[in-house]
């Protein structure tokens, strides 16, 4: 367990080496004007401000270098990256894409090795095991994490629980359904689960499969969906439909978040971004909001956290490669990195222990006011997995990105929940399509 006390800012800066100090060891700066392109799907205004600060400090430390930030999106990045690779017009640094994107691109020889950047940041500064998911061969790293996330935390409105006579935080699916049933009244719905044809529905459903004690693939990546766990996850998803707003059939991350933050639902399912959004958009409910692990099918079934392991990678063919590596390392310099993390406290969690333990990081008012929630999310994220690495026993799945983009899970949810198709047909179709995608 991590603690909130730690070294001073000076020690943190010294410990990390500050990329601007450490990175010049890579190579001297070029005298020619250099333009670097930085892509990220995390583009909330506060995050953009933090990025601008990081860009400014890097440009000041490296005269003649210009860094341009370009936004991508969670749904749109596969197309943009594919087009960039195909055209040879790749960005220099890409951040915040899920770890399975890194695996996929590395498997197709589309990324630069990342070891030198990790060396510049300082391998010892990372939380233990933080880079394991990026270690594509012993000692060989394809990228690194810029943060952690706990995407399927359950957010609860304590005031609504009290009004409805719900005394305990739901631990199982039955208890969650009961709580939602009792809290759903008037304009307030029970939950904002997505039932759309998008990546959020797919990722939440994967969480439910694990919450039912199953997995999508076996550890050696054989399709593993024709079983009770998968069927129970579908049944649970369907049983929650009556507690979700009618428009949940078109919900993505933003809609689901807004539904909870605005007070339209009694529970939420999201990362720590809830904290910042409640504080700024609906402070009236801030004191009533608590964070918990999402329930599972039974108390005996362990929680499973979806951590997409927001990454940093350098596409192969990126121009000015040494300056690019220096910039990638610069993103972890304490002053800028903490600003970036504070832009959405609890949403992107630090991967560097000195940063997490620093007084500066912990000094953020939202983190201070929600210390138990942030600690819980940090613990959950550090034990988290995703479709690219379902459990510690699983081999990395380089097809995970394509599987999510195929909407095979989201369509299964829609067919079973909205179209009332027989579960056996839906499950066997999922199995067949997964087999095809894994063979492709």
């Amino acid at each position, binding site marked *: 367990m991590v603690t909130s006390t730690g070294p001073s800012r000076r020690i943190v800066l010294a410990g990390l080496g500050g990329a601007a100090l450490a990175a010049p060891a890579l190579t001297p700066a070029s005298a020619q004007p250099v333009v670097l392109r930085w892509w990220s799907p995390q583009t909330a205004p506060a995050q953009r401000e933090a990025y601008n600060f990081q860009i400014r400090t890097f440009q000041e430390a490296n005269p003649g270098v210009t860094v341009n930030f370009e936004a991508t999106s969670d749904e749109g990045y*596969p*197309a943009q*990256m*594919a*087009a960039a*690779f*195909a055209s040879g017009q790749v960005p220099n640094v890409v951040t915040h894409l899920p770890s399975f994107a890194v695996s996929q*691109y590395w498997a*197709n*020889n*589309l990324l630069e090795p990342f070891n030198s950047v990790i060396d510049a940041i300082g391998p010892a500064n990372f939380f233990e095991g933080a880079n394991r998911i990026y270690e594509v061969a012993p000692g060989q790293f394809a990228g690194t994490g810029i943060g952690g996330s706990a995407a399927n935390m359950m957010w609860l409105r304590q005031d609504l629980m009290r009004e409805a006579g719900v005394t305990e935080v739901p631990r199982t699916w039955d208890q969650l359904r009961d709580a939602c049933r009792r809290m759903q009244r008037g*304009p307030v719905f029970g939950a904002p689960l997505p*039932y*759309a*044809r*998008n990546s959020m529905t797919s990722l939440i459903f994967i969480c439910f499969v694990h919450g039912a004690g199953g997995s999508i693939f076996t550890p050696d990546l054989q399709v593993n969906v024709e079983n009770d766990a998968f069927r129970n996850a579908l049944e649970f998803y369907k049983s929650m439909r009556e507690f979700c*707003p*009618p*428009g*949940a*059939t*078109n919900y993505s991350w933003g809609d689901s978040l807004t*539904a909870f933050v*605005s007070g*339209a639902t009694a529970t939420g399912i999201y990362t720590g971004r809830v904290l910042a959004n409640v504080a700024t958009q609906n402070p009236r409910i801030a004191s009533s909001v608590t964070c918990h692990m999402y329930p599972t099918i039974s108390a005996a079934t362990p929680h499973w956290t979806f951590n997409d392991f927001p990454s940093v990678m350098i596409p192969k063919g990126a121009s000015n490669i040494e300056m690019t590596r220096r910039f990638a390392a610069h993103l972890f310099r304490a002053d800028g990195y903490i600003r970036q993390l504070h832009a959405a406290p609890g949403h992107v969690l630090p991967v560097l222990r000195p940063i997490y333990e620093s007084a500066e990081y912990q000094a953020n008012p939202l983190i201070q006011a929600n210390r138990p929630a942030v600690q819980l999310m940090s613990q959950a994220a550090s034990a988290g997995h995703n479709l690219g690495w379902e459990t510690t026993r699983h081999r990395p799945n380089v097809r995970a990105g*394509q599987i999510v*983009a*195929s*909407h095979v899970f*989201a*369509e299964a949810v*829609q*067919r079973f929940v*909205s*179209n009332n198709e027989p579960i056996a047909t839906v499950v066997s179709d999922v199995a067949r399509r997964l087999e095809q*995608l894994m063979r*492709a």
Partner: protein
Amino acid sequence: MATNPLDRRYALLGAVLIAPTILIFSAVIIYPLVSAIYLSLFTIFTPTLRGQWVGLGNYAELMASNEFWRSLANTFIWTVFTLTLQIVLGIAVALMLHQNMVFRSLARSLILFPYFVSTVVAVLVWRWLFNDLYGILNYLALISGLLQRPLDWLGSMPNAMISIVLVGAWKYFPFVVIAVLARLQSIPDQLYEAAKMDGAGPIARFFDVTLPQLKEVLVVVILLRAIWDFKEFDLIYLLTGGGPVISTQTLPLMVYKEAFGLNDMGRASAIAVSMMLVMLVFMVLYLRSAGRSEREGAR
């Protein structure tokens, strides 16, 4: 063959003068067309553009794919219904704007607004209008007692298809208005006066005078809009993403999914080539119509 040196020089000059056109035509039409057909004969991993020859394998898979046929059917449903609405709305509004009315110029300008506004902006606005919790459409329906609970406009069928058809009609009917209004202004008044003298009422004048006069322009407008609607992507993708399941997935959305979601550029190209063949029918109709109009005009 020209034997006279002067003729040869003229022939050479002709070739030189037409060369830029041929080069541009080759670069923007022939090359992409041949590339698409060529790519469709391979399985190609999009990011690397490397792949293997499969011949007509992609086409055979498509013919056996329910998703392809369902997407093709969706494309036709979307095209036919949104186009019909565009034409009906476009003619109605054009007739209205052709009347003497207060602020006619302002109205003519404002009516073009949907056509000129960015699709992304338009879709964002419509998504808010359709929103189940905060949308004005559900709000009005609820307070007026039309609905007991919010309607799911974009996430269930047939609502999703109806919604995209309505938004598509709203977005593109101004094009019909522009074309029809221009033609209306050139219909001779004598035709209406003669019809009136023959005892024709407003409805009869519309069907016996206005509509026949609009026929030529409508043929062109319908064919152009049919081609454009057939390959519509952004509006549908942003509104429903093709869902629920694949109920509003049209062929362009399927091309996008195959090319960039599943990284199979070969299969995506095969779908695109199939789309092109269907659109070829529209083009042939268009060219025949244009040719007939020219011949009639020449007489």
